């Protein structure tokens, strides 16, 4: 399983690292723009998570719009976060090898977060 994830992530990380700088700049802006309305959804998510009962929150999250909101939010925030971290790493670290290692860790972190979130939703779907 881990080796399959590694196999999947390796070419992806190579491609992401090789993205032309102009494209990275553009994607950073596009994802930032998309995140503006998604922040409202995030606020509602936390409001419901902190105040609603388990049943109410489960039903709210599994509704088609909120499920779509969750996946769009996760995808966009992962892309925005990865590109933001990449810029910070490139700006403040001169060691190229360390840069690449940290970027790979970041990519793994976002990948696992995404896989974990999808897994959690699938489990919830069968539980409710």
């Amino acid at each position, binding site marked *: 399983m881990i080796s399959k994830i590694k196999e999947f992530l390796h070419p992806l990380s190579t491609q992401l690292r090789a993205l032309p700088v102009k494209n990275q700049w553009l994607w950073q*802006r596009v994802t*930032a*723009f998309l*995140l*503006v309305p998604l*922040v409202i959804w*995030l*606020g509602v*998510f*936390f*409001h419901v*998570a*902190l105040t609603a009962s*388990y049943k109410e*929150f*489960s039903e709210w*999250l599994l509704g088609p719009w909120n499920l779509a909101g969750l996946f769009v939010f996760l995808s966009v*925030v992962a892309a925005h*976060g990865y590109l*933001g*971290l990449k810029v*910070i790493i490139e700006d403040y670290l001169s060691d190229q090898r360390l840069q690449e290692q940290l970027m790979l860790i970041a990519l793994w972190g976002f990948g696992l*977060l995404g896989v*974990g*979130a999808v*897994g*959690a*939703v699938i*489990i*919830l779907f069968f*539980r409710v």
Partner: protein
Amino acid sequence: MPNSHRPLAPHVTIYKWPLTAVLSISHRLTGVFLLLGLVVFFTVLVALASGEAVFLSVQDFLNQRPAQIVLAGFAFALSFHLVHGLRHLLWDLGLGFESSKLRVYALWELLAISVLTGVALVLI
């Protein structure tokens, strides 16, 4: 002369930072801090998938005072990152570069961040 013995030019530790520069570096810091907020988001999702008992204990924990303070910090960081991010988008369009007004814009930005944080705290 070896690189390590070269005299350094005056740099960030010598000059007084303008407000816009402080906001700019804070934008990066809040971005990194918000990544920790993603972990809280993920924890809520996992707790929900783990069943009612786990979810209720996480919900109870998040409603305690120390966790509320951390959540308030996330609300502030998110408001800051959002408002300054919008300013970056305006800069990308070539707007808001008048040097005489940079400080005024920065103060407006701080006001918007305060209002947005307040709204977020009331709603959450």
